[in-house]
């Protein structure tokens, strides 16, 4: 007989995992939306942020000060990337910019290890991870906390985009770069701001993922979890990153538990990509992505 309670547990667990994927995906969306670049270095930025934070804390810097200092470092990193990598590549094809971010990811990973060492660090955010039960279903307190943080971050971004001048500039650039330039918006400044925002997302995601996995090199691999989310939700939609994350999280867990045994298990990693690929075939721009309309 089908165990509905277990199914709900798997579904809830998948949705909460999906929130963690969304956190990473949002960083990609911010950059793609405004500059059309798939920033492969997002995982490396996440690693760099978490490693910087935890190294400062281990050196006796108080939690709040370490958070603030890391934030400053990420802002400086964002501005430096814009100045040294993106600005010289203005008007280059997207593949050139993508390759630049690929190279950038290796540089950031190497720099992070060179600066802070290769040791694995524990990160305790003070959130208890023992589960509580709702109608027999185990729910992780930490995952709920992560979901709340993700929700708050999305809300803040929505307000920022809607009610600030820089947010308006973001939207203008995202809508049409050339038109934005024509009306006098400074593209480099907007790009520097968006890379800074992406750095802040990397910090938040890095701390939450770091508390889950430990702060170590493997943090940079969480980008692999974000890619099917982006395909499903759309590369240029924050809402798409959230919904895509939830869907991918739920689908991969349900697939692993109920379909995995027929294939010998271990299918969740590629099951997510199968779903994303299938979606790509019927809706190339994703659930919430802007359809590309070009004059031919």
């Amino acid at each position, binding site marked *: 007989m089908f165990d509905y309670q277990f199914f709900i547990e798997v579904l809830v667990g998948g949705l909460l995992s999906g929130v963690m994927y969304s956190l990473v995906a949002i960083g990609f969306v911010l950059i793609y939306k405004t500059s059309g670049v798939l920033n492969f270095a997002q995982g490396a930025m996440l690693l760099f942020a978490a490693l910087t934070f935890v190294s400062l804390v281990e050196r006796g810097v108080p939690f709040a000060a370490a958070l603030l200092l890391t934030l400053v470092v990420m802002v400086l990193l964002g501005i430096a990337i814009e100045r040294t990598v993106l600005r010289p590549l203005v008007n280059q094809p997207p593949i050139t910019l993508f390759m630049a971010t690929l190279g950038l990811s290796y540089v950031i990973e190497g720099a992070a290890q060179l600066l802070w060492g290769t040791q694995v660090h524990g990160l305790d955010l003070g959130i208890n991870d023992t*589960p509580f039960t709702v109608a027999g279903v*185990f729910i992780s307190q930490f995952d709920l906390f992560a979901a709340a943080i993700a929700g708050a971050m999305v809300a803040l971004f929505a307000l920022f985009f809607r009610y600030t001048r820089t947010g308006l500039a973001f939207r203008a650039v995202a809508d049409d770069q050339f038109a934005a330039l024509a009306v006098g918006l400074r593209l480099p400044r907007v790009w520097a701001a968006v890379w800074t925002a992406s750095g802040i997302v990397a910090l938040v995601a890095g701390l939450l993922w770091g508390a889950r*996995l430990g702060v170590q090199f*493997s943090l940079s691999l969480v980008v692999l979890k974000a890619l099917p989310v982006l395909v499903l939700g759309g590369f240029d939609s924050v809402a798409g990153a959230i919904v895509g994350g939830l869907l991918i999280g739920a689908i991969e867990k349900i697939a692993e538990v109920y379909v995995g045994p027929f294939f010998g298990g271990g299918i969740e990693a590629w099951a997510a990509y199968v779903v994303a690929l299938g979606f790509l075939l019927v809706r190339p721009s994703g659930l919430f992505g802007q359809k590309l309309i070009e004059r031919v």
Partner: protein
Amino acid sequence: MNVLNSIKLATVAVAIAVGASFPASADEQYFPLQSYRVGPYAAGGTGFFGGFIDYLNLINIRDGGVNGVKLTWSECETQYEVERGVECYERQKTGKNVAAFNPLSLGIQIALLERSRTDKIPIITIDHGQTATSDGRVFPYLFPLLMNPPSETSAIITYIGQREGGAEKLKGKKIVVLYHGSPYGKETIPIFELLSKKYGFELQQIEVPHPGNDQQAQWLTIRRAKPDYVVLRGWGVMNPVAIKSAQKVGFPVDHLIGNVWSNSEEDVIPAGEAAKGYISLITQPSGTEFPVVQQVVDKVYGAGKGNLEDKKRIGSVYHNLGIVNGILNVEAIRIAQDKFGHRALSSEEVQWGFEHLRLDEKRIAELGAVGLLQSINVTCADHEGEGSVKFQQWDGKKWSVISDWVKPDRVLLRPIIEAAAEKYAIENDIKPRVCTE
């Protein structure tokens, strides 16, 4: 880390990247090291190769080398990648008086399987290596010293049996094996099945896809299965995530038993409080109380030649594994020198030394390694050497040994090793050697 240290590290990294080597002269024995100090597995690499180099340094500083023959080495960075490992091997094998390669990577070992035969250079894979390579008749240059995967599996089941009050109590118990989705992780699937049949415990084996940074589905499946024990056959980030996920589903962590690649400080520290009580297998306990480790501290670090940048890592699991690996390599050279003369040896001569590596408790006491290593008895046919293991428990700050030495059931396992080796020999048209002892 200060800027000066960063610059020093960068200089070393550049030297490693370009494959700087320090070729041995006529009275020097050369160890080509395929190390990994950057990348995802750098924490393990720096600890292991740090311990290995520290021991080689100890021999040079304290004894002036092995019977007057100085030990030299150079590092080539592999980042734990197979293709880089092969490239390093090809570059370093041309060094003079090469003793042996120690890649600490199953993938690189597999890639070097036939090259070692052609080049007649020993490949040492302490605590790991393909199951078949324990059979020295087919693989004369491969040495999975101390413990191969079947022995490890058997020791874990023996230990669980001991905890339950005897092997007969395993009947009717349920054991889940959570394994890394890689050739390494899958290597023991048939061994667990064999032991399940022998002892009558119910078995469920669950794969975690690489890298294992999310295990929600696997642990919900485990919660539903309600096992008595979970065996963790993990690697890297998979380990702390497994420990944390166990806590998430309310599984008691002292019934989660980690294998030899799930047993380091790097595996438990990221899991924080969730790891308190976690148990794992070990071939060499951690700690600095062993005389040989003390000598490393006094003579090597005292002379400012220690390899670990963070001295708190001295005596950690990986560092002590590196020291034990150093002991086994150096003793193989010493044994070979007794036969061929007190001089720098060829790789083939060192291979003879490994094949006659017999360290009893008396010799281990002389080496200052009582409690760190029990005994080893490598023969022409058995390249594993009948090693024993212990089990340790994490208390939130350090590991404590909680068992005596546990012997694997080698009588049961040897036919599996021989069958795998013979199959390889047939497929590759290799005539197995005849071993007389």
